[in-house]
């Protein structure tokens, strides 16, 4: 294992971590800082507009996530529209899609995600242990600046549902958990993307991905 790179002395890009009331934002913030970003945790849409990049974090349930983030829906869509990089992590990635089986299982009508990457999130249903929890391998399927220097490394996952984009080209990387599923997805324009795993918990590999993200933001 190589040594964690020391923190760059100068910020490369300003990044907003969207605070919509879910989960621990400390690790993702520290990971982005380590990768060279100047980070602000906020739910203020004006800050989204000013930032070089926006991170939509998330743990927990799809319905709760979508409902909590709902007041920010138009603002997040505006970020995507303006070509600013928008990076969804775990539940944040699932929210980039259109819908989820998780919403339906509650016996209520499906809640809609951001629909920036059309598709749905479905539950593992092949007899695997659920949640899929632990370190698993990334197989890069196509080029994207987020996966620069990455292929075959392990990343840390915790989830019960996985993304199925309508367009197969949205799949940047896959992972095998008794079935192959998309572990990194991106839109056609390339500025909206997400990882099912937690880069902020994936050691060196995760820091490399966060660094790639910060560089994408710096190029904007």
């Amino acid at each position, binding site marked *: 294992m190589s040594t*964690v790179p020391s923190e760059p002395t100068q910020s490369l890009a300003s990044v907003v971590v969207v605070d919509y009331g879910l989960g*621990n934002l400390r690790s993702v913030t520290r990971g982005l800082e380590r990768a060279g970003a100047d980070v602000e945790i906020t739910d203020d849409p004006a800050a989204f507009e000013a930032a070089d990049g926006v991170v939509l974090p998330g743990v927990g349930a799809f319905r709760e996530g979508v409902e909590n983030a709902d007041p920010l829906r138009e603002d997040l869509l505006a970020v995507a529209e303006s070509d600013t990089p928008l990076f969804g992590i775990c539940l944040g990635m699932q929210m980039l899609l259109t819908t989820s089986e998780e919403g339906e299982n509650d016996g209520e009508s499906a809640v809609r995600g951001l629909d920036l990457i059309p598709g749905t999130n479905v539950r593992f249903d092949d007899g695997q*242990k*659920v949640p899929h*929890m632990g*370190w698993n391998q990334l197989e890069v399927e196509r080029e994207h600046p987020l996966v620069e220097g990455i292929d075959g490394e392990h990343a840390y996952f915790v989830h019960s549902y996985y993304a199925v984009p309508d367009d197969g080209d949205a799949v940047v990387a896959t992972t095998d*958990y008794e079935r192959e599923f998309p572990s990194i997805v991106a839109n056609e324009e390339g500025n909206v993307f997400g990882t099912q795993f937690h880069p902020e918990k994936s*050691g060196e590999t*995760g*820091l490399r991905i966060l660094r790639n993200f910060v560089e994408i933001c710096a190029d904007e």
Partner: protein
Amino acid sequence: MALTKRIIPCIDVDLDEDGNPAVYTGVNFEDLKYTGDPVEMAKAYNESGADEFVFLDITASAEGRETMLDVVRDVADEVFIPLTVGGGIRSTDDIKETLRAGADKVSITTGALERPELVNEGASAFGSQCIVISVDARRRFDEEGEHYVEIDGESCWFECTKKGGREGTGIDVLEWAAEAESRGAGELFVNSIDKDGTKDGYDLPLTEAVCDVVDTPVIASSGCGGPEDMYDVFTEAGADAGLAASIFHFDEYSIAETKEYLDERGVPVRL
């Protein structure tokens, strides 16, 4: 290519004479030896390939709790792998405080046995993925259990204990494991009072029995004396993760060596 088995060093955090965090390791809760500073240990284990950390506050005091949260903050700021924190967690406020400090999961033992609703409350407020239910199991060879396994020709059941095995509860581990899962536990952390500190291998019948009754991941703990014990608990008992303390703290085996051993024998690990 598959989900790998996780190797998890456990770091028991105590306070030294000056009130600073310190790690001590002992055998059967005796003969404690100072083994290091928790943050430095975490960094070294991360370099050696640890997949995750478990930190346990063994002080069971208010000062200890505060110190523990400081340790968690320091580790979370330096080391980018999952952290589980346990010891003295009894309320959703305790869970929240621990997660805020940078923990990804909390491990709950007594607090959940005494008030099982805590599992539901924690899972619904923070998600099942961060609620780890820990059991300190003890073998009992009498008629009072619910589920029996055969060990060396004798019928045995496993009892949940409190206070590091000093107090019994009469609750069958397998009943409790299934209940904790149905209440929303995302992972089970299985300790054995009989094997703790012995280094003669994990309690395989116990681990296997728990793996059989739940679908959530199981972390086996207590008794690891070397890489071959990890191999057995993964291949024979079906554990998802193996936890060890003293073999790593005393540098008897490094995590990297343990992983090489497992990899050579076909156990999927993150190298």
